[in-house]
């Protein structure tokens, strides 16, 4: 006989940041409580930016996340350039894609191997997995380093890059510096293709979800820095229209804001959404890898995200190699951006999904208002929806296996709680003072 089940995970393992999970399912399979609780303290970045010079913003926002600082730099720089009515041309455009390739490699390799693979291979952690799959982990460390080196050369350092500026880069990379990376990148491409094959053979839970996939889409390239915001259930919108269609709200159980469609619907951002909308724009090597891996792609199965991240890693490495091979070192990679009052909105594709920034700038170039909507804030309501849908299907499992499966589902999103808690609007409510 089935009985009520309470799943309580006080500290979610293998996610970036600190969160917990509470689910209650009745014997009849009704989910009466489902909360992905994010209790990592908020960090008030948006308030901190007010009054800062716009030139400081890329460096400050890079500190929101140690895993995806480039994404914050890209969204902020583009939004501030938009506020001045300037659009970046070459070589800045291509160099920004190259820098993003490095971050995608770093982030995807870290998540696929260290955080998500243990779920599928039956280990508690990457450490225990390494004892049996040492070559897989060593390959991942090698690949991660190739991504780090790319970010290091273009960004000035691999941790919180320093060369990104509003208007481009403080210094373009030397051609010889980039050429030196090619042997490692060529090896990383071979490794990445092997990774797709390896993870495509995993046994995936059978779980298809009819998502509202939201991502950038560009007619000529796999989305990173430019395009429109497209949806599988709604209209395509420009960056300036984004806040008319997607809105953040506070929920009592989370230190992170939840973003929903205006009207209340949840949506899904990240690799699955990008591949759903833009698979035909993958690099040919990645597209071939996706088609031949043996797993039907694109997919609406969240558990297959580990394969999609592997395919996107192939894309990032292959595109990086192409860019470096065609690179002509410019004298400068910095474009003039006039200081003027204005409002700029932009989104780019962080490894975990769409990252939206908007800024109001005054006539002296100072920030009047900032808004940052990270991928995890957008995915959090969808994660809870997924858990509500999946938990009743697991009632025949014992407590440990059911908990494991639900945690695994959360990790499919590669949630970055550190990013999601960058801001919390605090309302202090004082009870009325009794007069008597």
């Amino acid at each position, binding site marked *: 006989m089935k009985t009520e089940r309470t799943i309580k995970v006080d500290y979610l393992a293998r996610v*970036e*940041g*600190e969160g917990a999970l509470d689910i209650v399912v009745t014997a009849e399979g009704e989910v009466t409580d489902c909360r992905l609780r994010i209790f990592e303290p908020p*960090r*008030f*970045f948006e308030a*901190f930016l007010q009054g800062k010079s716009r030139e400081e913003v890329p460096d*400050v926002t890079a*500190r929101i996340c*140690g*895993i995806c600082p480039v994404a914050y730099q890209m969204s902020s720089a583009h939004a501030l350039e938009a506020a001045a009515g300037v659009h970046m041309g070459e070589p800045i455009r291509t160099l920004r894609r190259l820098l993003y390739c490095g971050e995608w490699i770093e982030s995807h*390799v*870290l998540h696929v*191997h*260290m955080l998500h693979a243990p779920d599928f291979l039956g280990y508690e*952690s*990457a*450490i225990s997995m*390494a*004892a049996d799959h*040492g070559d897989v*982990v*060593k390959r*991942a*460390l090698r690949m*991660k*380093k190739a991504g*780090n080196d790319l970010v290091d050369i273009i960004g000035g*350092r*691999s*941790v919180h890059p320093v060369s990104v500026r509003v208007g481009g880069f403080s210094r373009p990379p030397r051609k010889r510096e980039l050429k030196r990376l090619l042997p490692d990148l060529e090896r990383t491409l071979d490794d990445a293709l092997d990774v797709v094959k390896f993870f495509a053979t995993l046994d995936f839970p059978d779980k298809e979800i009819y998502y509202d996939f939201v991502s950038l889409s560009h007619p000529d390239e796999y989305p990173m820095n430019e395009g429109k915001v497209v949806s599988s259930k709604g209209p395509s919108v420009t960056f300036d229209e984004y806040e008319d269609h997607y809105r953040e709200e506070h929920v009592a159980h989370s230190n992170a804001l939840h973003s929903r469609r205006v009207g209340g619907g949840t949506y899904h951002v990240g690799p699955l959404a990008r591949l759903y909308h833009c698979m035909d724009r993958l690099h040919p090597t990645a597209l071939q890898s996706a088609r031949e891996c043996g797993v039907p792609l694109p997919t609406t199965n969240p558990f297959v995200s580990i394969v999609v991240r592997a395919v996107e890693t192939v894309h990032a490495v292959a595109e990086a190699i192409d860019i470096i091979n065609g690179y002509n070192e410019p004298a400068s990679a910095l474009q003039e951006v006039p200081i003027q009052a204005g409002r700029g909105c932009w989104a780019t594709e962080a490894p975990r999904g769409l990252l939206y920034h908007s800024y109001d700038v005054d006539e002296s170039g100072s920030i009047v208002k900032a808004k940052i909507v990270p991928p995890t804030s957008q995915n959090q309501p969808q994660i809870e929806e997924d858990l509500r849908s999946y938990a009743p299907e697991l009632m025949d499992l014992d407590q440990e296996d059911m908990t494991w499966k639900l945690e695994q589902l959360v990790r499919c999103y590669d949630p970055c709680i*550190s990013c999601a808690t960058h801001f919390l609007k605090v309302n202090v409510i004082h009870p009325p003072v009794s007069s008597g």
Partner: protein
Amino acid sequence: MRGDDGLALEAASVAASQMRHQVQLQCVNGNVADLVNALSEAPRIIVVDATHGAGEPGSLSRVEIVNGVLQSMPHDTARVSSHGLGLQEALGLAATLGVAPGKGVFIGMEGASYELGQPMSDAVRSGLPALVATLVEEAARLSATKRRVQELAAMGIDCGQLQSCNAEDLAL
């Protein structure tokens, strides 16, 4: 930018410039993969980081690392560093893969505040010279051990892994 979070980088940069021995200085993010890559690049290592919950602000912690294992902890938690994914996990993974440093030391300084936009605290600022001096002393100690190993090797005494050390083998 975040209070005392940058104390390690500041101290290590100053210390590296004062060391007589060639030392490779690496700034590493808190994620486990980058830590393992850094740990695997030298058989001797000094790790310096801000700590949280390991004493009064400005106080120093010192823990030996032998064959990839932290030998003791300054307090009853596995996480000494202020980073979410700790040194302990990275050392464990490096040891499992057979790439852990043979010998090293963790030096931590307790921070007072990690708040965004706050300057370094007075307690940490005034403690930095002591931290720098400690790092320089530790580098000298590890190098002296290396010289002793070389002396022993010259006498035909096998010291295993440490025998392969050279001037570039110490990372900070």
